[in-house]
């Protein structure tokens, strides 16, 4: 572990960001009698009024099942849901709307790729390549698949600074690898992986690629054509939309080759007892009535972000994260997990004798919400010889004053357990 010690000035919050914070009603509430300081954004983000209103409006005016009604409400609900798909496609710069599959979240998206894309191709001698900094959602589906097929899971190591070991990556990228699945931004360390050249190397060897963008799409512009990935996954609730909705982006060519995920209504072309045929993507992968309000609300969340501007968000958050890292590193008892070249979203740390769970409780009574534990990254914590860390994770609505409140509370915790 190492410390970031470069001095940083207090960032100025751009006026557009100051105004946007007012759009989040929950940020006006208190917690344990203190103003809420919400620093658990990597777990789930808060929702702006525009998204909350979109959900209400849907249930007050449009609610009906989609893709199957002849009446006005169904037509309107279908149009709103499909418009949301288009918004996601444009948000990611997909070539076509049909490349966007709605799922319950990033976890389901990855399981869908494991089942519908990779499993039918996989031989016992094949390998799936991931890294040591993956979230459990990008580990366990591949472990389960490896158990079913006899294929092997290969792991790109992580260095002490929290960066990928790229030399070993080159060695591991052999012809046996059938899928390279990598996290864009680490939810624990905050490392921003420079994935574009890695995806290009995999592509050059004919290896399919999946990018876990659950912790990047809310912080920086992400362009699937520029990055060149075959699949990309993210969750709605981490990007200011409701829980229970998420996205799988897949290149249309590759989606066309894939078998269905779940069977049921809306994914079929013809059903008979002598044989059933399936719809083309994305419908083939969307059995049953989906989370219609969630999909529509996700579209509104993306509209909201685009209006504010991902470039504005990225520029401000970069300063805020650098400020937070330097202020935290200045606490003598505190050790940061990793020291990546580019950090986004999350900062994890330990505080000498204070256990992360105790830190979490002490901060909670000060109105500050953080995460304590392994953040669904147990292998990463094992690699650093830790069973838990505390994590502060940020969204654009967080302020330098909130960083200062965090620092004051952490100093109290350090004193209590000294």
């Amino acid at each position, binding site marked *: 572990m190492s410390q970031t010690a470069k001095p940083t000035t207090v960032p100025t919050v751009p006026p557009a960001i100051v105004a946007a914070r007012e759009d989040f009603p929950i940020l006006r509430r208190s917690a344990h009698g203190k103003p809420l300081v919400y620093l658990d954004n990597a777990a789930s983000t808060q929702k702006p009024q525009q998204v909350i209103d979109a959900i209400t409006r849907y249930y007050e005016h449009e609610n009906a099942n989609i893709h199957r009604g002849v009446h006005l409400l169904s037509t309107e609900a279908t149009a709103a849901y499909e418009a949301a798909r288009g918004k996601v496609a444009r948000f990611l710069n997909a070539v076509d709307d049909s490349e966007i599959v709605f799922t319950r979240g990033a976890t389901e998206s990855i399981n869908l790729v494991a089942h519908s894309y990779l499993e039918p191709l996989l031989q016992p001698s094949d390998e799936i390549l991931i890294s040591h900094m993956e979230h459990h959602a990008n580990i366990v589906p591949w472990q389960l698949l490896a158990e079913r097929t006899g294929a092997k899971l290969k792991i790109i190591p992580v260095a002490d600074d929290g960066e990928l070991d790229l030399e070993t990556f080159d060695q591991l990228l052999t012809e046996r690898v059938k899928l390279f699945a990598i996290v864009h931004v680490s939810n624990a360390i905050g490392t921003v992986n420079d994935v574009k050249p890695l995806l290009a190397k995999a592509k050059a060897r004919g290896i399919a690629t999946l990018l876990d963008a659950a912790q990047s799409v809310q912080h920086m512009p992400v362009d699937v054509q520029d990055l060149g990935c075959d699949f990309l996954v993210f969750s709605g609730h981490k990007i200011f939309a409701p829980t229970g909705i998420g996205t799988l982006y897949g290149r249309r060519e590759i989606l066309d080759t894939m078998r269905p995920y779940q069977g049921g209504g809306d994914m079929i072309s013809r059903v008979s007892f002598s044989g059933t045929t399936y719809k083309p993507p994305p419908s083939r992968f969307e059995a049953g009535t989906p989370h219609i309000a969630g999909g529509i609300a996700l579209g509104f969340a993306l509209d909201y972000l685009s209006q504010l501007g991902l470039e504005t968000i990225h520029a401000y958050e970069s300063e805020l994260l650098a400020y937070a890292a330097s202020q935290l590193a200045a606490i003598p008892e505190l050790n940061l997990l990793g020291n990546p070249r580019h950090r986004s979203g999350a900062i994890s740390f330990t505080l000498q*004798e204070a256990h992360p*769970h105790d830190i979490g*409780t*002490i901060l909670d009574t*000060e109105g500050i919400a953080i995460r304590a534990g392994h953040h669904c990254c*147990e292998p990463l914590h094992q690699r650093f010889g830790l*069973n*838990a860390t505390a994590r502060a994770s940020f969204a654009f609505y967080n302020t330098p004053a909130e960083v200062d409140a965090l620092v004051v509370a952490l100093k109290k915790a350090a004193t209590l*357990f000294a």
Partner: protein
Amino acid sequence: MNSTLERLYRQTLLEHSKKPRNNQALPGGRKATVHNPLCGDEITVYLKSGDTNLEQIAFTSQSCSICTASASMMSETLATKPISQAKSIAEDFVSGFKDKASAPKLEGDLAALLGILEFPSRIRCATLPWEAFLLALESKP
């Protein structure tokens, strides 16, 4: 420190967590390990007993202050007690914390754990050692 926090982190609790009693492995005795997947904490409780009475309880752990203090207090409270009585105390402790209808009746140092009732997310931290003890009782020597 604010008052809610003071009720949780009482001096007795902090003292046990910073200087836990019987914080060691007991080779040759019975043991059981319990892991809390929510936070990653893990505790192993060791015990030695005669025909009717416990002789010694100890533990090793990677755990928060509440879990460590609870384990330390447990090792003192239950040591040398008749096995059946220790089992019933441990069962009452676990069910008392998990069943909100009936607060556990705790005396002596253990009373310092009562503040945890105000922090539902920390209740498992307190019960983890006692769950491990009950499992160790069931384990083969």
